[in-house]
């Protein structure tokens, strides 16, 4: 029996050495700062999930870069932000999406669900702190193992295809303009009922915890953190409990400036679905958002007033045209 155990150990040892060496090499290569450096004029970093990924066109918002990614929980945003701030000292402000669904229970799945770990872990593992990895391992050990295997395989294929070079681009998010206009058809299908049925009750403790970590990180790095909420279609808005959302924001994040644009009215043809803007909506809203970003002293109340004025004008124009 001892002989078998020793033999297995000595058989696995070269494999382990190869795997650990290769993994270390991947981490070393992927951590090189040049992958994460922005242009010197970039001062504003836009972060969040698919809503700002689609809605914020950084070619319109001056001195800004959109690093939002669909399906991203704050757990992964935290790792991303740490690295980007470490490499880009010129960043002065971080604009972080803070919306109703980001406090919901679904964010637990976004953090340690199988599909999300398989998607996000390979992108962020080399920058993730050990304690953050332990969180994932504790919640979903199997998916972490699968994701580790995916990392090795993907990078091995990359190396073999590109003669010893890692050429696969690092994907940490960017503006994603969408073409679709599906709101009218979704309204006809009563899709909003489906959304309501699928909504899980409760809050995501882990997402709120990592949001707090982001707040602390920004303080330590001496960058301003600003929350923002994007326009949401009125039908979806009505399904949210605004009181609860507001109470959580005030309880945990009252010190953070909140640019609430949820009431910003946009026509159905500029939405992809009830929560995502298409390229037309993105261009229009980004122009508005640019005004907010350029005014560093703007307050939450001033944003609300701006939106009210803009909506009055918008509604007047709609009525006038009709």
């Amino acid at each position, binding site marked *: *029996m001892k*002989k*078998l155990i020793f*033999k*297995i150990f000595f*058989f696995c040892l*070269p*494999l382990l050495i190869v795997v650990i060496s290769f993994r270390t090499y991947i981490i070393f290569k992927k951590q090189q700062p040049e992958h994460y450096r922005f242009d010197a004029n970039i001062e504003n970093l836009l972060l969040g999930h698919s809503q700002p990924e689609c809605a914020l066109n950084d070619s319109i918002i001056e001195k800004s870069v959109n690093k939002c990614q669909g399906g991203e929980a704050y757990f992964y945003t935290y790792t991303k932000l740490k690295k980007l701030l470490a490499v880009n000292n010129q960043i002065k402000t971080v604009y972080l999406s803070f919306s109703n669904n980001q406090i919901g229970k679904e964010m637990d799945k976004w953090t340690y669900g199988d599909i999300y770990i398989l998607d996000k872990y390979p992108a962020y593992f080399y920058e993730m702190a050990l304690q953050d990895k332990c969180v994932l391992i504790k919640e979903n*050990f*199997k998916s972490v*193992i*699968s994701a580790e*295997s*995916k990392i*090795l*395989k993907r990078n*091995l294929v990359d190396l073999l295809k590109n003669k010893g070079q890692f050429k696969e681009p690092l994907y940490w998010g960017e503006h994603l303009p969408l073409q679709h206009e599906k709101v009218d058809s979704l309204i006809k299908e009563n899709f909003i009922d489906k959304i309501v049925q699928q909504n899980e009750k409760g809050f995501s403790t882990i997402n709120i915890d990592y949001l707090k970590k982001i707040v602390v990180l920004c303080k330590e790095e001496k960058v301003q953190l600003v929350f923002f909420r994007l326009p949401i279609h009125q039908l979806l808005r009505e399904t949210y409990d605004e009181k609860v959302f507001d109470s959580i924001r005030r309880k945990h994040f009252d010190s953070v400036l909140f640019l609430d644009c949820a009431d910003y009215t946009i026509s159905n043809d500029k939405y992809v679905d009830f929560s995502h803007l298409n390229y037309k909506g993105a261009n229009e809203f980004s122009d508005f958002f640019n005004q907010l970003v350029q005014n560093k002293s703007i307050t939450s109340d001033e944003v609300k007033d701006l939106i009210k004025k803009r909506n009055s004008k918008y509604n007047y124009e709609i009525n006038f045209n009709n």
Partner: protein
Amino acid sequence: MLFNSIDFALFLPIVFVLYWFVTNRNLKLQNLLIVVASYVFYGWWDTRFLSLILFSTLVDYGVGVGLLKQESLTKRKILLWISILVNLGFLGFFKYYNFFLDNFITAFTFFGMPIKAGMLNIILPVGISFYTFQTLSYSIDVYRRKLEPTKDFIAFAAFVSFFPQLVAGPIERATHLLPQFYNKRVFNYTLAVDGLRQILWGLFKKIVIADNCAEYANLIFNHSDSHSGSTLVLGALFFTFQIYGDFSGYSDIAIGTSRLFGFDLMRNFAFPYFSRDIAEFWRRWHISLSTWFRDYLYIPLGGSKGGMQMKIRNTFIIFLVSGFWHGANWTFIVWGLLNALYFLPLLLTNNNRNNLEVVALGKLLPSGREFLSILVTFGLTVFAWIFFRADNISHAFSYIQGIFTSSLLSVPTVLPLSVFGLLAFFMTVEWMGRGEAYALEALGSRWKRPLRWGFYYVIIFLIFFFMGKEQEFIYFQF
């Protein structure tokens, strides 16, 4: 849990350590651990399945104990029939209820008497076709006085539920496996290493060959109406290797795992695709099932005794039942019938017992004649697999129709060169190891350690590189 899963990768070492370090001093404890581990393994799919296997175990244990005490032939027959009815009843209900009901309705409707009946939403318990046959072999062998019934319930429960072979065989005979639970297993280093080697080869067959072929087989079969004849031929070929890699791979892992625990399971596959005729193929494919049918159906029906008519009748019954065992679909029955038709000429000309030895043993290549025989047998097998894989009879026929068109001579639209390369490597290794119990068996004695380990590392690398297209073991659905 699947053999090629992280769950099993954690489960096996834990059970292994407990087995050899904690329970090895006490036979009952060793057997009890097997029972507990097997029930955990089986319950991993669905805990509801445990009640079925427990009930089946209790019934057959009770029948065995009853047969021990009974001398009256009538009462012995009653006890045997209780076992048969319970086991086949479970199988019939879970596997065939909806099939029979559906065909019943179709038949009545055809004759102008439509009837309404609700289909039941029945989950097929994993492995039910395997363990019911295994426990039946116990009851029948005890009835025939070929085996002493056991009073040791734990040993019997371990025999029924033994996790390496519980869900997809080999279907073990009580006369072979049950006595192994009566003696404390002693660790054997050579057996354990051989077991690990066989597990490795089984994983290669499953993950590299079967799962990669499955991707293309599914692509072609699921859209067969839009592919050329040559592509459809490739689809049938991919399925041929998928089912072999899948099933024989599982058997290799099962046998290898059993060796780690000191058990010997029967061989289930003996390089069937190198067979020179269909009779040889059926002596080499799913050996545990074909011998089960031979011993418990063919021989009781009269077997080869009696005239040619009886032989033909019994042969057809076996192949049809074997086809039906695989699933509740007419395609399996047609597959069985096709194999019976393939077998018939050999039976009629008394050539069904040729080719008993390994083809071209000791030679590098087969002779021209042997090669041609292998090719023809392989072609017939591939053709029959079309029915096995098709969704229904009309799908099978339209698939075959699609092959025999002018597009048969065109270049296939699906040409995964990497898979062809893997298949060439695989069949070369299989051919080189065809004289052994499994392809890599002789590696231990023939190759020096650096070369041997280097080869293992290549296999492991290929497993790692080609995994990720995980497909469930095909035979789990039976």
